[in-house]
Structures are given as C-alpha cells and as structure tokens.
C-alpha cells in the first residue's frame, strides 16, 4: 500500500510539473517576427578579428546571412520592407571583407534591385555602379545587368546609357566579351540615337575593339535608318 501510494504520488508530481510546464509555454509563446530588423552592420575590422583573419569565409557568412535574413524560420519578409540603407551597409561589409567575390554585387543587382519601389531599385543600382568603379574589369557583369534593369524595369534610358557608357570607357580588359563595350552603341541604336551610335562605333573601331568584319557588319546593321558611311580600314587581330 505504502509503495503503491508513493508511486502514485510520484506520477502525480510528474503530471503536475508537466502541466505547469505546458501552461507556462502557452503563456509565453515565441515572439512572432513580422518585419526583420537587419540591425547595424558591424565594423569590418571587428568581423575580421572575430573570424581570426579568415576574411573570405567571413564575407561568405555575412552574405549568406543577408541573403536569408528575409526568411527567418520560414516566414518571409517582403524584400521591399528591408531598409535599403542598412542592406547597402551589409553589402559594403561583405565586399570590404572579400573584394574578390561577386556575391554582394549579385545580391544587389539581381536580388534587391529587382524588388521594391523605383527609388529603392535606383539605390541598389547606384551602389553597384559605385563598387563597379573600383574594379571595372572584374565587376562588369553586374553593371551590365544594371543596364538591363535601368532600361527595361525602371524605363530610365538616361540611367541605362550612363551605365553602358561606363562599361564602354572603364572596362579595358581585352578578355572581356566585346558585347560589353558595345552595349552603349546598341542601346543608343535601340533608342533611335543613331548619330550617337555611329560616333561610338567609330570610336570602337579606332580603338581596335571591333574584332572581326562580321562583327562590324552586325553592328552596322543595327544602326538604322541612315546608312553608315564607309568605315575606316579595320585591322582585326
């Protein structure tokens, strides 16, 4: 009897404690997050020290955090609700930690610049342009995408021409595909600015950046309606 009673008391105690725990958990549910607060990006030197000097690894961790911060625990936050100034500071941190990577530029050009209000998108494109100027021969792919976003998403032809002109004048690596420097020309031809496009084509020829007669013929065909005057002698490589 005594053993049975003590066993019953033990089980009763367990049941009461379990019930108390369940009630406590229900009274204090986990906080629901509607909009993620990115918080201030830490200083780069602090991150470098915390990562024991492994800058590239720290850069990837920062970018993975930024890339996934809008989906905490499966609940998505609209990208447009993220403060763009803060996003830019985090992107700056990622690129400062690891200047060789293109991850921050990819996120800016293809993830954040394709969502939000036009002002938000312009902010991201402006950031891409600023960081492109530091290493144009390495970071041209993302500015090329910025030309596309400016032209076809924002419908801002002046901005698209500005970026395309930057690609033409600042990208000097001969290994870069020729269409990158020709974007300016093709864009102006598309916009009907044939005279400007012809001037640019002349400049590309003079600089030896038109690689083959077939390429020249193709580019000339894009310049309509006026026929292109006889081109200068082309010395293709």
């Amino acid at each position, binding site marked *: 009897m005594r053993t049975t009673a003590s066993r019953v008391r033990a089980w009763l105690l367990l049941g009461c404690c379990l019930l108390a725990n369940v009630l406590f958990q229900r009274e204090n549910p986990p906080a629901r997050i509607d909009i993620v607060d990115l918080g201030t990006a830490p200083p780069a*030197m602090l991150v470098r020290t915390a990562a024991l*000097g*492994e800058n*590239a690894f720290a850069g990837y961790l920062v970018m*993975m955090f930024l890339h996934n911060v809008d989906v905490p625990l499966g609940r998505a936050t609209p990208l447009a609700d993220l403060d763009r100034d803060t996003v830019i500071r985090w992107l700056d941190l990622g690129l400062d930690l690891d200047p*060789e*990577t293109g991850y921050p530029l990819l996120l800016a050009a293809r993830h954040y610049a394709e969502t939000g209000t036009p002002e938000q998108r312009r902010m991201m494109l402006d950031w891409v342009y600023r960081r492109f100027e530091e290493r144009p021969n390495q970071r041209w792919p993302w500015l090329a995408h910025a030309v596309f976003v400016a032209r076809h998403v924002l419908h801002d032809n002046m901005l698209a021409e500005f970026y395309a002109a930057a690609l033409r004048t600042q990208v000097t690596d001969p290994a870069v595909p020729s269409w990158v420097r020709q974007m300016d020309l093709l864009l102006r031809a598309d916009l009907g600015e044939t005279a400007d496009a012809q001037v640019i084509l002349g400049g590309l020829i003079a600089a030896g950046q038109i690689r083959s007669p077939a390429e020249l013929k193709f580019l000339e065909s894009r310049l309509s309606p006026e026929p292109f005057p006889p081109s200068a002698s082309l010395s293709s490589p």
Partner: protein
Amino acid sequence: MPPNSRAVLGLARLTLLEARRTAVGKSALAAIAIALCLALFVDRVVLTDQERATVVTYAVIVRLGVVLTLGLAIVANTVRDLNERIIDNFLALPLTRMQYVLGKWLGWSLVAMLCALSAGLPLLGFSGTPGRLQWTLSFAAETVVIASLALVLALALARVITAMFAFCALYLFARVSSMLVLLSTNMGADRGSLLDRFDARYVELAGYLLPRLDRFAATEWLSGGLIRLGPDLLQAVIYIALLGAVAGIELRRKQF
C-alpha cells in the same frame, strides 16, 4: 646509431602507436569529414562562387578541427603520462629529459604532419583551385608548431583543462595578434591616454612572444592570392626552437 638515438626513435615510434591506440587519426579524419560536409553544404547555399566558397569554408573549418583535435590529443596523452608516472619508466632509462621530450616531439610531429596531409587530400577534388600544395605544406608546418606548443604546455601545466585553455588562448591570440596591433594603431592608441598606450604596447609585446599563425596556410592562397611559403617554414623553425628552449628550462625546474 648511438643507443640514445635509438631510444629517442623508439620513443617516437611508441608515441605513434599510442596515437593510433587512442584513435587520434580517426578523430582527425572525423574532423576532416565534418569540415567537408559543411563545405559541401555551403556549396548548396551560396548563389555564386560555389567552388571558391566551398574551398574557403573547408580550409577554415578543417584547420580549426585538426588543430583542436591534435591539441587535445597531445595534452591528454602527455598529462596522462605525467599523472600515471609512465614518464618515470622512460626517465629510468639512460635518457635525459630533453631526449625524452625530443622523442615525444618527433612522434607527435609525425602525427601532426600526417593529419595535415590528410586534410589537404580533399582539395585534390577542386581542380580549379590554385595553391593547394603550398597550402597543405604550410598547414603541415602549422600543425607541427601547434603540436610543439601543446606538448610544452602539457609538460609545464600538467592539467588537461588548464593546458587546453592555455593552448586555445595562445592559438587564438597567435591568429589575431597582428590584427589587434593594427586595430590599436588605427584607433590611435599610440597617441591616446597612458592606459591606451600601455594596452597597445602590451598587445604588441605579447604578439612578439607568439608565432604569426595567421601567415600559415592563408586561405587567400586558395583564392589566387600571393603565396609565400618560405617565411612560414622559417617562422616554424624559429618558434619550434624557442619552444624547445622553453621545454629545457621547464624540465630542469620540474620534479618528476
């Protein structure tokens, strides 16, 4: 071969057998496997630079895993030898204390190099990654340095937790000391108050007492960065000799 040399080499061989018996190799392989799995996970997560992100992640995690595994194994084994008086059996032989330490050091250095070379093997799967051989060799030098450090700390402190704590603290400081010096300079510590200047000099002096481990097996080498293997090897030789001198002084002081 002189009898003492045979005894030293025999002790080294015994250390290798002990490492095998206590599954140090298996632990290191587990650390390498975990690092590889985490690196492959990162490969699935990142949007761009997949191969570079994978290699960088692997290099960082495998370094920490192998260093901690080796440090713990060496400290635990050495402290056990001290506590169970196994060391007395060896010192009863015609061996000096330094020869005993030399034999243990040879054995553990070989274990460390084998672990480092094993850590470098998965990099063969990344054909587009430069500097893999140099990174592996430099990492081998780093593991020999940290094996030497763990051995000296274990002999000096003779407690597993204390020695491991000291090992971790010294390793972390050796990795970040140059950055702390730069940080204090950039923040104007050398022009600040007396306390700031003292802090700056203190950090600088502490940095001189430790090797520049941030130069060993730099992850930038695997991303196309400038590779400088010679200074690492020279630093390893200098610091191992320094640790040998510390061990000599410590053993003279110790009562076995």
